[in-house]
């Protein structure tokens, strides 16, 4: 594939999405991004979507369906918030301390989740159901089901998401880290081998269990960051998410995951997730612009339709290409 084609293929979707959404906004006398605050939110939301998508895809690409992502994000954020508040009382440096603790606790929760999977040796979709219920139960027990607010409402936290720089740095670090880990280390080679041929990979001596547990740890740490960013952005954490109340976050990552995989054909799937997250964030900002006319229900429907339409295209690309090529030839003749 030529470099030109790679560049065009990589950037086509985000550019087209950006142009269409900006055109829609301009037609109504608005802009997708209206001011610096709006831009800050745009970058922070991009980070949230990108990291969630990466966390979802790491296990899903290996055939491991994980419902526990949302519960890991919320529980690790609560642990981080409680500990950092106990240590610094919401003072200077609280956000950085909370971020560090949240990543660590997210990784530990991921480790626990991975251990349940490899020890019980039952399908990951089932272990994730159990783990989700357990984490939601722990979350509820710690918070008493209340919103956690005092611990996350301070200048340090609002300052963290008050500028796009922190989120941009996080995006950069995570993209570099994930590309390095999954494309340039033995862990990553093993992961890719296991992903494309589990039995063959195991027969060649790749140790599947540590690799799977490692994936869960990385997912947990990533969801810890998501939990932290959500807490800082929303200025609260909902502690009352029982009976699978936390799983919705997973569904928001499906569309960017499929878009990212498509973009990845032209460059790298991790970069694809970033660009897909940019698209989703642009869409989110557009929804915000039209929030008075597009209700939450309509937003849900639009997202669902986009997901289905994109997948129809993705899974019927050859058919559509053949169709258009044939018509083109007929027209030419």
């Amino acid at each position, binding site marked *: 594939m030529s470099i030109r084609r790679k560049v065009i293929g990589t950037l086509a979707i985000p550019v087209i999405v950006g142009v269409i959404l900006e055109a829609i906004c301009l037609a109504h006398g608005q802009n997708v991004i209206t001011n610096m605050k709006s831009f800050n939110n745009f970058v922070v939301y991009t980070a949230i979507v990108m990291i969630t998508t990466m966390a979802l895809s790491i296990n899903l690409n290996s055939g491991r369906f994980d419902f526990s992502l949302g519960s890991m994000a919320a529980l690790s954020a609560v642990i981080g918030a409680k500990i950092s508040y106990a240590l610094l009382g919401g003072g200077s440096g609280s956000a950085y301390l909370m971020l560090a603790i949240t990543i660590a606790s997210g990784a530990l929760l991921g480790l626990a989740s991975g251990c349940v999977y490899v020890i019980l040796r039952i399908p990951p979709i089932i272990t994730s159901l159990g783990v989700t219920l357990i984490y939601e139960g722990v979350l509820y027990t710690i918070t008493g*089901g209340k919103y956690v607010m005092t611990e996350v*409402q301070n200048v340090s936290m609002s300052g963290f998401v008050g500028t796009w720089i922190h989120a941009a740095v996080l995006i950069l670090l995570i993209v570099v880290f994930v590309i390095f880990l999954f494309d340039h280390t033995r862990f990553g080679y093993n992961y890719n081998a296991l992903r494309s041929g589990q039995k063959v990979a195991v027969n060649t001596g790749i140790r599947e269990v540590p690799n799977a547990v490692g994936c869960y740890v990385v997912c947990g740490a990533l969801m810890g960051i998501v939990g932290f960013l959500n807490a800082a952005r929303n200025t609260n954490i909902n502690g009352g998410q029982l009976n699978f109340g936390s799983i919705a976050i997973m569904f928001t990552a499906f569309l960017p995951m499929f878009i990212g995989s498509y973009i990845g054909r032209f460059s790298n799937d991790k970069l694809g997730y970033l660009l897909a997250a940019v698209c989703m964030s642009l869409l989110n900002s557009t929804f915000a612009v039209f929030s*008075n006319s597009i209700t939450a229900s309509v937003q849900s429907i639009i997202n669902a339709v986009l997901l289905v339409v994109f997948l129809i295209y993705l899974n019927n690309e050859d058919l559509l290409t053949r169709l258009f090529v044939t018509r083109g030839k007929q027209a030419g003749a």
Partner: protein
Amino acid sequence: MKNNRLFKAIMIGGVLAGAMAFTSVQAAAADLKIGVLVADVSGEEAQGFRAYYENYIADNYDVEFVYTDALEDAAGEKAAIEKFVSQGCQAIISLSSSDRATQLDTCEEYGVYYAIASGVLDDELFEAYKGYEYFAGQVGPSNATEFEAGVKMGEFFKEQGVTSVAMYGAFIPNPMHVFRAAGVIAGLGDTYGGTNDMGGMIGQIFADQKVDPAKVEGDVELCAYLQGYGDTTTDEINAVVAKEPEAFLSVGMATTFFTQILNEAGIPFADIDSFTEANGAAIKEGQLVYLAGKYSSSIGPVFALIKNAVDGNVIRDEEGNAPSFSQGYLVATDGASFDEYYVADNGDTPIYDKETLDTIIGEDVTYDDVKALVEAN
């Protein structure tokens, strides 16, 4: 072999759990056992209500309260009532409103007294059920009171001379929030879709599923509006801040979601919530300038209605129907007025303390006695 061991372990676990059931210590049974239906177990208001019943009422009267988990739908409410009946509850107090009609029918079927302590029946439903034998009555803000709470909030800011406000519609089309939002618009002196009549406004808001700023007309401009809570909320609230409204008027939950953002932006705001410690901080140190709320012991009269009914004195109005008392909101506009209600209604000294409640508990208590007390507080 290993499998057999695990299997045995599970079976032994089952037997042990059974033994636990037999040996579980049961508290001495109280004279009166009341089941409480709750939809919200985590809100500050819900927890305040619960603390009042469990820590104050239960200590001062021979009564045991049993609570549900957070009820999600009508089926959950009906199942909860049936379980309460099975557990020997003589009465049900409802703080959950998915399907009040089914709650009433179920209580009537099983012969347990039923009272509503939050979000009263609308007029049509009340007419249909007020004659039920086991309906002990309802005490709480009526839809008209919700509208009135909104009106007072709007008037407060109009009197301050604001010309441009932003509004948070909370979870419209939740009926309570629809009535409050309509009230705010009316209180500001504006019209919605050309009318300031309650019925006309709420009908349009239900149809629109939101407040449409384009339909708000009058001296005070509604420069921005948002509702709900989701991924776009942060963008929306920042868009509101960017429009620099003179005040931010919320019909619920703003103190949970937006206190920090509004404090940082320096925008005075109002909310209808409850008298909690966090809201105290917001009104004393932040930008919260108007808080309409209920106090924890406001559910005291409902307990009195239920206790009287179970003891044989079923209170009825002049026409022999279940009583319906509307309770207004208390309003705090500064730290001092906040403390007046917050401190007065705390721990061992609730506004509806034993001494006060005893005046409406007893075999000679009448409809007028209860009415007089509720209206006085």
